[in-house]
């Protein structure tokens, strides 16, 4: 499949979906011929002119639905993405019809509707939508193994070793009580990578940090493939699914906002 690099697409899945319109014609813009009559500077029927309503769409994972087999089955992806993720899109669009947050980018909306811990009605679907887009792009076929270069250096700097990072990530995932996510994210203030778990739909976006990897630990993410064996799910994610390419791209973007140290200027 001609899979595209999806750097920009996940930040805002906006698209023009519908418009109430009637065909505009030259008459709408005709100004009065007489110089003495007041000429309208806008089309006569401006008030009923076409209105564009933009809503969120379902972004496709950057791989075929069966590409993550055998670590995540096609069935799981079909249902998780096609039904559950899709439902968040539809529910959010429905809420946005009457919401003051219409027009926000998804990231803005997640942060604003979190409302410092008293989430507004839009939060759950907006945050779930963002997190799930992020999740699909955190994985790739033939992923896992070990990162290289700058990413590995940063992880070794912040976790002492790559194995330590994996252990911390897995322990956080397994210690979630109920539904939640586990994240590798970049703390802006401390300029370091950190692992944390969150409940329900919360993500590091809400406290202003930059997510780098997100793993869905809700039961729907793994139950069909692993039943209650969360350890196997997390290990397979780390060893075979996590996309270090995505991580690299995200770190590059994050460096525009967080100074991770002096740049290495090549000599000569």
């Amino acid at each position: 499949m001609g899979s595209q690099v999806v750097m920009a697409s996940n930040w805002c899945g906006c698209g023009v979906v519908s418009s109430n319109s009637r065909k505009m014609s030259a008459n709408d813009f005709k100004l009065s011929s007489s110089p003495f009559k007041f000429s309208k500077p806008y089309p006569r029927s401006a008030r009923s002119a076409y209105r564009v309503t933009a809503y969120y769409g379902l972004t496709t994972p950057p791989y075929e639905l069966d590409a993550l087999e055998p670590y995540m089955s096609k069935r799981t992806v079909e249902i998780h993405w096609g039904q559950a993720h899709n439902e968040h899109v539809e529910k959010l669009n429905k809420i946005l019809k009457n919401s003051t947050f219409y027009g926000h980018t998804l990231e803005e909306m997640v942060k604003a509707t979190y409302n410092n811990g008293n989430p507004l009605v839009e939060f759950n679907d907006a945050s779930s939508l963002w997190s799930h887009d992020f999740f699909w792009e955190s994985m790739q076929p033939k992923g896992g193994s070990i990162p290289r270069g700058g990413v590995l250096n940063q992880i070794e700097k912040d976790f002492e070793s790559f194995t330590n990072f994996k252990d911390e990530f897995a322990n956080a995932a397994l210690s979630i009580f109920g539904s939640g996510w586990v994240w590798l994210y970049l703390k802006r203030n401390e300029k370091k990578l950190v692992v944390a778990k969150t409940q329900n739909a919360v993500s590091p976006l809400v406290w202003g940090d930059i997510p780098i990897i997100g793993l869905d630990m809700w039961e729907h993410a793994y139950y069909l493939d692993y039943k209650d064996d969360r350890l196997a799910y997390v290990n397979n994610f780390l060893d075979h699914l996590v996309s270090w390419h995505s991580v690299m791209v995200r770190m590059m973007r994050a460096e525009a906002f967080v100074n991770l140290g002096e740049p290495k200027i090549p000599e000569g």
Partner: protein
Amino acid sequence: MAVRFVASRKTLAQTLTPALRHYRSLTTVTLPDLPYDYGALEPAISGEIMRLHHQKHHQTYVTNYNKALEQLESAVSKGDAPAVVQLQSALKFNGGGHVNHSIFWQNLKPVGEGGGDSPHGELGWAIDKDFGSMEALVKKMNSEGAALQGSGWVWLALDKEQKILKVETTPNQDALVTKGAHLVPLLGIDVWEHAYYLQYKNVRPDYLTNIWKVISWKYAGEVFDKECA
């Protein structure tokens, strides 16, 4: 010359306590047996779900609760207050999981043994009085269960103080008592994904509609009668 042994209170305590401790054993919990086969609730709830739910999930809560209890006992006897406080979330989660599921298994019965029947007696009257009808109660519980974000439970509760029935929800494995000691759980429906995902996938409303076919009012009625006696 007689040697006088003065046993101070501290020495006495030190000698006696180990002996006392030898007789005091920690009461742990065990996984209750299901009063029906795993497949007996089909087609409302599949045998595979019942088996995993009971043998894996509930068993894990039992095991981890007992572990937390042992750690708690050790922390209490050492006077380690920070450790005692730190264990609370594990106790609440795993203990709650055990309490909640123990009630849940008793709320369910195969179709031939009371599953799906209407409530009788005083409880039936109370439902009509407080909700209007059985259908209204089912509708309310289903809508609250479907709307619950993440994992949790939906309950039919008896408010002992006000003497009315209420529909409540609790998140994760929080037991109903965490919402108030005056609330008595009569009927609970597990809306964690593990309770339905293998069969109903993410269509929680279908699970909620179908589970009423195997819900038995016997346990709820007994608890209700006892509390209202």
